[in-house]
């Protein structure tokens, strides 16, 4: 009978990404409810030493697939390796990160395992011994509670939403042969063009200061950059600002942009259209600064400032500088 809660850890450039710890901690919680073990799949080349870090977050066993064919990540290779070890062990539940790589992998893997997958979940729980996954739909206008009728029951977790709680377990390493035939792999990474800004990606930022139509132009964003710097955050933008050419597409937060889950989201000159909310409603705290008291964003904000953002934002930067000094 299918047993065990498994995760697929994500590593890049020789380090585990934060989502791996969120996955481990969530799997631990589910496994404890089911009275079963947590195992992780760790794939790459020369990555065995990373396994112990997963133990800190509750992983009992780490199945390590170590081979040059698994570095860098390519979906065909990782899906084949993961499917092999999964089929040999028959876990009941499999959690993957809903990061760019995780989304690319999870769907292909679910197809290979002929199983169901709930993507970009904001909550998971055990109900009647099965995994119940809760995920936004229709840009977050409603949520679906998903049940998977086959094993492993797969879910991908939205990054930065689930806590990474420490819970030391053995992380016993079990090496397996990924048995991936390089000649069968028909895609490859030619080049990694790193973003040179030195900032973290919006989807991983703890603080985002975001600007919309109210910024009136690209120059307006400089005050947002200053506030973001003081708060050690990143600058995002609404679709209006991106479509106007003031900011790049990669900065866009929203239904046709990025979904972000920072601890703090400061929305400046953003009206709060439903499509924008779709991208930031997972934020733990939302501050809205807008001179229009009727702007829909105020209904979602924890703290609302109805005033001229060009006056408020620099003052907020100063106030934060003083507090954080």
């Amino acid at each position: 009978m299918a047993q065990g809660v498994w995760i697929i850890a994500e590593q890049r450039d020789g380090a585990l990404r934060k989502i791996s710890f969120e996955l481990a901690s969530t799997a631990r919680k589910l496994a404890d409810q089911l009275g079963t073990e947590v195992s992780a799949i760790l794939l790459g080349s020369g990555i065995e030493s990373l396994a112990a870090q997963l133990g800190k977050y509750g992983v009992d066993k780490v199945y390590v697939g170590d081979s040059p064919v698994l570095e860098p990540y390519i979906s065909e290779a990782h899906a084949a390796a993961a499917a092999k070890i999964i089929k040999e062990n028959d876990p009941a539940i499999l959690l993957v990160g809903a990061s760019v790589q995780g989304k690319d992998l999870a769907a292909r893997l679910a197809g290979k395992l002929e199983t169901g997958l709930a993507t970009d979940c904001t909550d998971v729980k055990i109900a009647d011994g099965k995994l119940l996954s809760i995920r936004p739909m229709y840009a977050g206008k409603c949520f679906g509670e998903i049940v998977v009728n086959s094993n492993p029951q797969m879910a991908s977790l939205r990054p930065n939403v689930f806590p990474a709680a420490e819970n030391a377990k053995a992380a016993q390493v079990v090496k397996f042969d990924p048995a991936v035939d390089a000649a069968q792999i028909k895609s490859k990474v030619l080049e990694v063009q790193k973003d040179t800004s030195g900032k973290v990606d919006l989807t991983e930022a703890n603080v985002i200061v975001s600007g919309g139509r109210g910024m009136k132009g690209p120059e307006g964003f400089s005050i947002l950059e200053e506030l973001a710097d003081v708060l050690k955050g990143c600058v995002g933008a609404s679709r209006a600002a991106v479509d106007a050419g003031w900011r790049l597409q990669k900065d866009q937060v929203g239904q046709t942009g990025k979904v972000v889950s920072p601890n703090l989201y400061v929305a400046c000159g953003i009206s709060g259209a439903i499509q924008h909310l779709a991208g930031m409603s997972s934020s733990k705290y939302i501050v809205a600064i807008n001179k229009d008291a009727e702007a829909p964003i105020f209904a979602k904000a924890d703290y609302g400032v109805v005033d001229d953002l060009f006056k408020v934002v620099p003052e907020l930067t100063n106030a934060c500088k003083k507090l954080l000094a």
Partner: protein
Amino acid sequence: MNIIACVKQVPDTEAQIKVKADGTGIEEGQIKWVMNPYDEFGVEEALRLKEKGGGTVTIVSLGPARAMETIRTALAMGADKGVHICDPALDKADAYVTASALAAAIKGMPYDIIFCGQRAIDDDSGQVGAMLAELLGIPQLTIVTKIEYAENAIKAIRPIEGAQLLVEAGLPCVVTAQKGLNEPRYASLPGIMKAKKKPVDVKDAAALGIAAAAKATVAKTVPPPARPPGKIVCGDDPAQKAAETARLLREEAKVI
């Protein structure tokens, strides 16, 4: 070149979404139906590829009877023919059933490249493109913002966290389109008229030989979780309001 573009008919992004009282789904009465915006990028890319190097563009869609309208829109943009997978048994299709149905239909035709949208804006699931690639045994390039075509291969840009990947895949392959890939054209009036006569095959689950049972079911549809009510920050001037906001963030929210 034999080019395929998969499309899905979805509610317009402005649609008011009301959850049914019994939690079995959403009210569909007042909805305006459109082509999934991400699929538009796929159709546009397919048409540009055909314009550059010749070939045919076939539109494939799984959906109820009303989805035919979306196929006609793609034909009006310039695609040559369509396949409409239409069967009440498939109305609750999940990603696995959808990908299986598309794969079954596509296996029956020659194909060099398959375009899908990176996700559909109704379920926001984002699985079908990659699953389709797996079921056809071909490579996938997902969430692509730029494509370059070579002999029997394509190069593409895939944004990831903090970087961009330049990737290459042999043909045939599946590409899922991200915003920014191109600017989709509008269907012209002559295009709309021509589209009415272009051939669309209608197939059901039995014709494709696929099982209709979903692997993942939506047990319940619920309204979004409520956020606790917020407050408007008081102050006589911007400086005071800013200072108070900073204080609240520090002492109350504890996020800075």
